[in-house]
């Protein structure tokens, strides 16, 4: 029983990692850069939802939808202003930009007087609800995360696998020059990708807020999502979720059964083991350059 309860907690926590990892993978798949700002976008999304719900008094669903839409728009704008000017530069430049964006986002939020340095709670209707199934305790907040994550993942997977735009995004990440030659509007797609990633981040932020609260540093959880993405294979959307689950469950179990300290580094040990055994993660493409 204990074990099952731990696994359930692990799954719930894993879904959180997976959800954030989804954002990483999304950006990576479509632009081949790693966004270090994903956690901060999530934080902005949560603050956005908070502002709408508590300060502007929007009803819950309206607030959620507006927050996601607003963040999507913000993502597009961000791409337009900050990323686009250096589109085509080596991927690492863009990684640096995202680090910068992270600093700015955190700084800006912190600067809001009376709000930025505080921790807030998001008034969601399902707060603190628990279902007892036998001796197990299921937590509404966690169940919502699991459900939403699965849906988002399926949706994004379909987009990338079957839609023309999705394939074009991958194409432009693999060879931008050729994408231009094909008339693929690389810049516009990039905008869409960042919009999408911000929207996903907003969803993550809103779902996470009841558990971790809303504060300027909530984005740091993204550091745990990196291992999740890697374990799953960085280019794979389902991999992000599976990776998240693996990490979540391992963490939860090692926290209970292993000596102190292991829980905190379990994720990283899993990553290292994975990289030794299967360097491209569970679902990553096996890549080898043909010469």
């Amino acid at each position, binding site marked *: 029983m204990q074990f099952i309860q731990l696994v359930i907690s692990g799954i719930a926590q894993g879904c959180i990692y997976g959800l954030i990892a989804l954002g990483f993978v999304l950006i990576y798949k479509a632009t081949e850069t790693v966004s270090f700002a994903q956690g901060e976008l999530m934080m902005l999304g949560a603050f956005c939802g908070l502002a709408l719900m508590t300060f502007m008094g929007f009803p819950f669903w309206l607030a959620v939808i507006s927050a996601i839409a607003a963040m999507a728009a913000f993502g597009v704008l961000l791409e337009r202003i900050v990323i686009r000017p250096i589109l085509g530069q080596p991927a690492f430049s863009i990684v640096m930009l995202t680090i910068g964006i992270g600093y700015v986002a955190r700084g800006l939020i912190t600067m809001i007087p009376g709000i930025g340095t505080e921790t807030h709670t998001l008034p969601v209707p399902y707060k603190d609800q628990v279902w007892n199934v036998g001796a197990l305790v299921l937590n509404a907040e966690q169940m919502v995360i699991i459900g939403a994550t699965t849906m988002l993942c399926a949706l994004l997977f379909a987009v990338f696998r079957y839609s*023309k735009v999705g*394939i*074009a995004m*991958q*194409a432009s990440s*693999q*060879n931008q*020059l*050729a*994408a*231009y*030659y*094909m*008339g*693929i*509007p*690389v*810049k*516009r797609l990039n905008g869409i990708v960042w919009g999408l990633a911000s929207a996903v981040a907003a969803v993550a932020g809103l779902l996470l807020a009841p558990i971790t609260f809303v504060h300027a540093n909530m984005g740091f959880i993204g550091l745990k999502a990196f291992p999740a993405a890697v374990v799953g294979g960085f280019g794979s959307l389902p991999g992000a979720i599976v990776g998240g689950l693996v990490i979540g469950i391992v963490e939860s179990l090692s926290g209970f059964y292993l000596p102190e300290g292991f829980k905190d580094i379990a994720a990283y040990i899993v990553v290292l083991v994975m990289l030794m055994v299967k360097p491209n993660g569970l679902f990553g*493409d096996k*890549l080898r*350059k*043909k010469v």
Partner: protein
Amino acid sequence: MTQNPPAVSDTPVLKLLNVESAYGPIRAIRGVSLQVRRGEIATVLGSNGAGKTTILKTISGIIDPRKGSVEFKGESITAKDPAYIVQQGLSHVPEGREVFPLLSVHDNLLMGAYTRKDKDGIARDMEAVYTYFPILRERAQQDAGLLSGGQQQMLAISRSIMAAPDLMLLDEPSLGLSPKLTKEIFEIVVRINRERGTTILLVEQNANMALNASDYGYVLENGRIVMEDTCARLREKDDIKEFYLGMKEAGVRGERRWKKKKNWR
């Protein structure tokens, strides 16, 4: 080729005026002016580093010219976004293949048709390129990056055909293709020109092929156009014969290893 070719009209589809492009401090082409008329095949000859690729890249907006203007179908496309230019009905087979290595062959071809909306037309063209290059059909689900060099070249050309463009820029289409396929490629190029009326600008090291397939030719040296004429007449010029067609007056070069200076007679 027996079918009646569409008449080459006098209106230029593509017009370059005094174009100058540079990579940093290196000026790769200087004051190039050329025209491609609707329905014709034009070719640019030139030795290594003459700037042929640079011209094509400048046309499709991959590099912005320092000076001069590029006009496509009467509209200026100077320094526009490459995606925009391609959407105007131009497609470019780049030097060095540039396939999408991690997409399947089929998806690569689909990307070629990105700017098109007509589903039926796309399916038809897909069928057509599969007939041109049966190996692509065989490998439709394989990652393009794992194809052999020549197969990738076929894919690059096919991808461009899939775009059903008005103007096709071909940068060394025969690179790495077997002799048999090289001929076939040129036949396909000519067929596309004749059957669909696609205007073509061709850059090719295989000058013999290029001069036979094209209507009009330019010779580029050190970033400048030094000669232009119809291909029929170019084929008769001595320098062309010697330097581009490899037909030597006996004993001029032969097995000896000195180079005659080109003076563009």
